[in-house]
């Protein structure tokens, strides 16, 4: 077995785990902001890890360039979208769940 395949397999496993934990977080967390945290962080990280794994599989080709492009786009747009979302939620007057307001 090729060493590159092994590494990419490991990366894929890490990525899958990250995505899964993000999914569970989005499903289980109590309010918008914590859900956003779960989704935003794992989304970007998991996507990057998985794309890295695919890059190792692709080798030197046009596919590699496209994967890099996807990764760049995701790295730029993902956090921006999260920021815009959080900003809009805050502006609309949604309060984050803190210790004090916990017993709603």
């Amino acid at each position, binding site marked *: 077995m090729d060493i590159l395949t092994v590494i990419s397999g490991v990366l894929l496993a890490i990525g899958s785990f990250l995505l899964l934990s993000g999914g569970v977080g989005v499903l289980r967390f109590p309010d918008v902001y914590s859900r956003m945290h779960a989704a935003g962080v794992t989304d970007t990280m998991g996507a990057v890890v998985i794309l890295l794994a695919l890059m190792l599989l692709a080798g030197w080709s046009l596919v590699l360039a496209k994967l890099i492009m996807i990764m760049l*786009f995701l790295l*730029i*747009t993902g956090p*921006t979208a999260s*920021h*815009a979302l959080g*900003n809009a939620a805050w502006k609309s007057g949604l309060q984050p769940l803190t210790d004090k307001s916990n017993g709603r």
Partner: protein
Amino acid sequence: MLIATAIGIAISRDLLSVVMLSSIYGLLSANFFVTMDAVDVAFTEAAVGAGISPLLMFATIAIVGRYEKLPHRRVLSALLLVMITGALLIVATLDMPAFGAADAPVQQHVAPRYIQQSGEEIGIPNIVTSVLASYRGFDTFGEVVVVFTAGIGVLSLLMLAEGKSAKPVAEHLLKASHHKILRIVSKALVAPILLFALYVQFHGDYGPGGGFQAGVIFAAAIIVYAMLFGLDAARQAINQTVVRVMAALGVLIYGSVGLVSMLNGGNFLDYSVLAKDPLHGQHYGIIVIELGVGITVAAVMVLIYFSFAGRLIDRRGANE
């Protein structure tokens, strides 16, 4: 999952979440198309189903109002009717060929010819493009004209009252100047998107892509700009009259390719006569025609968005 989403859409009464779900629905169906090998279709669905159409629906909701007011009526009789029709249709499917069978009637008729000979006759690898632009060029011409006509229809419906109620609107809202991060990021993104649209446009012969997809992507870039920098800025950057002329120009380009091939002694839209070597002729014809399609689709989409957004602003102006 598609079914679950659709049921969710049927149940929910908040129109906003309906639209959100329909955007997810678009993403899902595009996924389905990829697994079904229809990369070109997935491409189009990606740009249209997940991007443009939810945006337009959102704009409409912003104008029309968010909630459905009345309880659903005639639910029982409607359900009954739907059940009966569905059952009949399912009975009808029992005669259909099995899924994925290579000997189904659909696969027998013209498809083998396209698959086996288009490589030699047209000389481009993407069979979908060659069928779209060459074998069925006349159909596609019709589709482009339909898109163009729909654009005219939207314009004539929404532009009628324009200027009647144009009062100054809350500036900061329109221009979104408080979204500094968003503005910078999308400013950086607009150019790559446009470039990518051009890549899709001209790479359509070799990979998935072509005029329809490129047009939609191109329009999406302009729509982002209009959303974050205000409609006026976008109208300044892209003159509206020019867009209107472009929409017509695309159709004109398409049609005139057909006429030129007639003048050169071939049939309408028969590109083989465009150059000495029929293969080259096909290439020229397809590239020019895809360009026409792209121009028309992009222009019409931009026009539609402009008129929707213009309506939104007019209405706001009238409210104040």
